[in-house]
């Protein structure tokens, strides 16, 4: 009795005879791609932990040095951008395996299906994760799902599938990384033809592609001194000053922010005091140079002037060591409010800023009053502050 496989004519499969598409090349690119994914994952977890209110109180984050958040998110975007050419090169090197016939034995076939399933999740998750990240930085939301939830979940999916992939391939990885890149011990039998480049040439081209992508296309490079001049594909630049994520018009906050009746409410244990812009200016002022750093990888130093939040809290008699909620005038949005842990609320550098770089705050930067604190994600530096609640 003939088997199903014998009765069904085999699909024509392309022949990949180039010896460049080899485990020796794939594993070397894979090492760097794995490192890039690891950096993205860890830096992503850090940002996620800081931005989820329920986690903020559980995992302390230091107020100093002020560049920690900035560095982690720069690394996140740099590694993610570098991962695009690395992933494309890795998939190019292993593309012939897509057409490999499954093994004949039932047990082997089952194991093959499981392995291919995990690779399918790894490839699909990686392509989508990087694609969504690039689209998010360009604020291109062409989907109906929640970006933050999906980006976070896919991060876990990719790391899980990567662990399985490393486990399955470990013997081959060890074999090819322990030998010269030109060694052919683990090559497919038909992969014997020389390619246009040497294997070392393929690797060099891949590293250069990753480097060029970071320098030319990352949002981090777009706002970095010097690099911003050559970051031709960065979604951000410094041409219009410090970048902003949401304009006052987009937040629907223009009437409230420009109202002559503006006042900032301060709530403490059921009592409320209101401070007009002039009264806030009459309180002790301070100036600090602090970075504003976005999860999207861009960051910029600004010199901010305003009332130290602690001075305002002293004015209403709030004790030290209390968390503080800062609420925007806007009606909705993910950046509507933030809760400052006690060490951030009491830090003398945490300001209710009214000036940026010696000029009154522009409407899009949070006029008349915005929060600026050291070492915080940009989305938590609440703009158009309308209320301060001592918790």
């Amino acid at each position, binding site marked *: 009795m003939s088997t199903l496989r014998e009765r069904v004519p085999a699909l024509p499969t*392309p022949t990949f005879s*180039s010896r460049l598409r080899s485990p020796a090349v794939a594993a070397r690119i894979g090492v760097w791609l794995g490192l890039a994914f690891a950096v993205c994952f860890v830096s992503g977890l850090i940002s996620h932990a800081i931005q989820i209110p329920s986690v903020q109180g559980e995992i302390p984050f230091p107020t100093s040095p002020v560049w920690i958040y900035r560095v982690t998110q720069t690394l996140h975007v740099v590694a993610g951008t570098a991962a695009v*050419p690395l992933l*494309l090169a890795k*998939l*190019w090197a292993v*593309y012939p395996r*897509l057409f490999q016939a499954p093994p004949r034995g039932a047990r082997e076939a089952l194991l093959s299906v499981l392995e291919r399933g*995990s690779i399918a*999740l790894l*490839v*699909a998750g990686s*392509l989508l994760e990087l*694609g*969504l990240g*690039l*689209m998010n930085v*360009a*604020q*291109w939301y062409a*989907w*109906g*799902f*929640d970006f933050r*939830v*999906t980006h*976070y*979940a*896919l991060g*876990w999916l990719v*790391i*899980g*599938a990567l*662990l*399985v992939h490393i*486990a*399955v391939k*470990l*013997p081959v990885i060890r074999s090819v990384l322990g030998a010269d890149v030109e060694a052919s011990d683990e090559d497919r039998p038909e992969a014997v033809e020389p390619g*246009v*480049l040497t294997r070392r040439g393929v690797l060099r*081209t*891949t590293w*250069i*592609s990753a480097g*060029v*992508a970071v320098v*030319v*296309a990352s949002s981090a490079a777009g706002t970095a001194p010097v690099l911003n001049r050559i970051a*031709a*594909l*960065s*979604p*951000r*630049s410094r041409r*219009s000053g410090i*970048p902003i994520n*949401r304009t006052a018009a*987009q937040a629907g906050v223009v009437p409230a922010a420009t109202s002559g009746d503006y006042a900032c409410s301060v709530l403490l244990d059921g009592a409320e005091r209101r401070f007009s812009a002039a009264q806030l200016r009459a309180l002790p002022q301070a100036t600090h140079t602090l970075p504003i750093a976005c999860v999207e990888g861009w960051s910029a130093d600004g010199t901010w002037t305003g009332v130290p939040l602690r001075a305002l809290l002293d004015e209403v008699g709030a004790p030290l060591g209390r968390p503080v909620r800062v609420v925007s005038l806007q009606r909705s949005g993910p950046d509507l409010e933030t809760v400052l842990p006690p060490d951030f609320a009491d830090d003398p550098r945490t300001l209710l800023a009214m000036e940026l770089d010696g000029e009154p705050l522009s409407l*899009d930067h949070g006029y008349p009053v915005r929060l600026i604190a050291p070492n915080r994600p940009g989305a938590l530096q609440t703009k158009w502050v309308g209320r301060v609640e001592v918790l």
Partner: protein
Amino acid sequence: MRAETGVRAVLIVLGAAVMAYAAWLLLDRQTLDQSLEVGRWAIIAVVLHDAVLAPIALGIGWLLGRLGGAGGVRATAVRAAAAAGTVIATLGVTGFAVLTRSGDDAGNRTLLDRDYPAGLLGVAAVVVVVAGLAALAGVAGARLGARRP
């Protein structure tokens, strides 16, 4: 060998657990329709790569292989073209979002504030010139080496 087997088993169990957690995150924190849309986007991403990008790369590689010889100036030029083409193509893919959305800043002057198609062309020109100079240097070096006794 036994240690490696143990490491592999741990990695598989850990990886499977992490993937299960990811699936729970994906399903639990948004509606089923949203989760299904994520699945559709993942399929589109794979199809775009496996059925569009990869075959194009395959075709260009095949063409370059036919053009290049075993050695000489033509082979050097083809190698330079392959390297430059790879850098430019991967950069184009990396910049797909800004290239597609070029000029659409939704009223935010600090977003998408460059001419991206022109930027890609400019960088591509620089990459081609650098690759060409590197190829010329390679050819000149090879000829100098051949003349030496």
